[in-house]
């Protein structure tokens, strides 16, 4: 099932010791269409992780409201509504391997489904599917999650979220701290779930190449606000704004600009990925 997400003037902050923090989300309005893959970019402290938490009811707005499908999260929500939301919105935290706890990988993956009232036999079935979805072998199910490698742990943790069979998947820098190949594989997997299952996906990332390669839309955050929400191509064509936000370009686009500057040659289109760049270069006869 596909699911729309709508944030309406959402303002939120945290309790920190005796004080409340300044607003970490400041009147955020954003609308994510069903089935889209949205990348959230912005500097550390811009409020990206807080935005994800609001989508999941882990951080309640003190003003405004969040709509996930037909469920509304407001300031004072009851536990039942929150649980319903958490079943629909699968949340992969930064360094999700920190949440592994069970004796076996299977038990850990079953944790989510069991909490949402799935029977044990069904949960085990789901676990077998989920572990294959993250590209791991079924034989790992009986192993201890603590005996796995870093990359494997990360995938098991993600499988634990997929096992909840969410309609929306939100991920906070799922590639952070992995080797380049591992990171690429995980992102390709995420992208394929988005396409094949129409899974609405929200991805926080610092890597503009990932944004260019996988996302449909980009939301740029700055100081608790979503300052831009547009298609990838539009966002990366707007050089002045990008400079103002201190957002990098994808490496293909950087290469293109440098090339155009040094050779005086102008390529026909804005190239965001290596493939597009290669095509454009072939077209002008440079390669």
């Amino acid at each position, binding site marked *: 099932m596909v699911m729309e997400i709508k944030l309406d003037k959402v303002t939120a902050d945290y309790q920190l*010791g005796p004080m409340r923090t300044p607003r970490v989300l400041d009147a955020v309005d954003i609308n994510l269409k069903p089935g889209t893959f949205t990348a959230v970019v912005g500097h550390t402290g811009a409020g990206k992780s807080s935005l994800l938490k609001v989508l999941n009811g882990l951080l309640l707005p003190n003003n405004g409201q969040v709509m996930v499908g037909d469920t509304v999260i407001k300031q004072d929500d009851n536990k039942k509504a929150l649980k319903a939301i958490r079943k629909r919105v699968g949340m992969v935290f930064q360094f999700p391997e920190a*949440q592994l706890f069970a004796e076996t990988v299977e038990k850990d993956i079953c944790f989510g489904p069991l909490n949402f009232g799935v029977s044990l036999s069904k949960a085990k079935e789901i676990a077998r599917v989920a572990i294959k979805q993250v590209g791991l072998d079924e034989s790992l199910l009986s192993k201890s999650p603590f005996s796995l490698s870093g990359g494997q742990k990360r995938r098991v943790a993600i499988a634990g979220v997929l096992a909840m069979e969410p309609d929306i998947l939100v991920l906070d820098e799922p590639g952070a701290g992995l080797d380049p190949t591992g990171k690429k594989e995980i992102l390709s997997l995420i992208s394929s779930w988005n396409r094949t299952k129409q899974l609405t996906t929200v991805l926080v990332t610092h890597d503009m190449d990932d944004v260019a390669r996988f996302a449909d839309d980009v939301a740029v955050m700055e100081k608790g606000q979503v300052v831009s929400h547009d298609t990838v191509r539009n966002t990366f064509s707007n050089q002045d704004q990008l400079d103002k936000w201190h957002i990098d370009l994808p490496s293909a686009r950087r290469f293109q600009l440098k090339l155009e500057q040094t050779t005086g040659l102008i390529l026909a289109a804005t190239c965001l990925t290596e493939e597009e760049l290669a095509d454009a270069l072939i077209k002008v006869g440079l390669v």
Partner: protein
Amino acid sequence: MNKLILGRYLPGDSWLHDLDPRAKLVAGVYFILILFIANNWQTYALLWLFTLLVMKLSNIPYRVYIRGVRPLIWLILFTVFLQILFTAGGTIYIDWGIITISEFGLINGVYIFFRFVMIVFISTVVTLTTKPIDLTDGINALLRPLKKFKVPVDEWSLMLSISLRFIPNLLDETQKVMDAQRARGSEFGEGSLVKQMKTLVPIFLPLFVSSLNRAEELANGMEVRGYQASGTRSTFRQLKWKFQDTICLMAMIGLTIALVILRTSGVAFH
């Protein structure tokens, strides 16, 4: 978890923030001791004034301190209650055998209540205005004389400072793991006791694992940089006794004298 006040540090630049941690520790412990000199309303009033003044000097709003007492209020009221029930003397209002509610009992209860609250307030002042690392340095400096008796003061203070250093990390991590398990449908504080205990496992296990890993990394890090338990250590942060620290201790002496005078001149209740 984030609401805990006692034991927390709030950065600031008040006169109290500026005091030497040794002065604050000595004055704090000394204050708790001289609380027991008080025996009539005049002495309690003086101590209250002093406490309120010290809280004012910290430049931290009173409501922060009040919030700090709140988690302890049941413990305090319970003690007060026992005091009221088991103290006899003066006019008796209710008498059920060993349980009596008497004039002295009530007065005593009120005193105990205020004594407790003052202890919490003053301890909170010390921790709110002192960086944990300064607190450890202060304790280390004050315990130093014990070294002569072969007490491993340096090791203790290293242990203390490492623990203090990692408390914020541990709290952060607890919050994160709780959020992560909540996102997977875990509900805390719901259902039967057994059920609640079960929801704790997915929190404590990851924390345990990460703490052990961190301890090992830290130990390795210290070892490769040549840490030896037996070495003599110099310190990067030097504690400096200033004039205001002397004033602080003088104030405590002044308070003691005033208390003793009020105690003898005022009317004691027992």
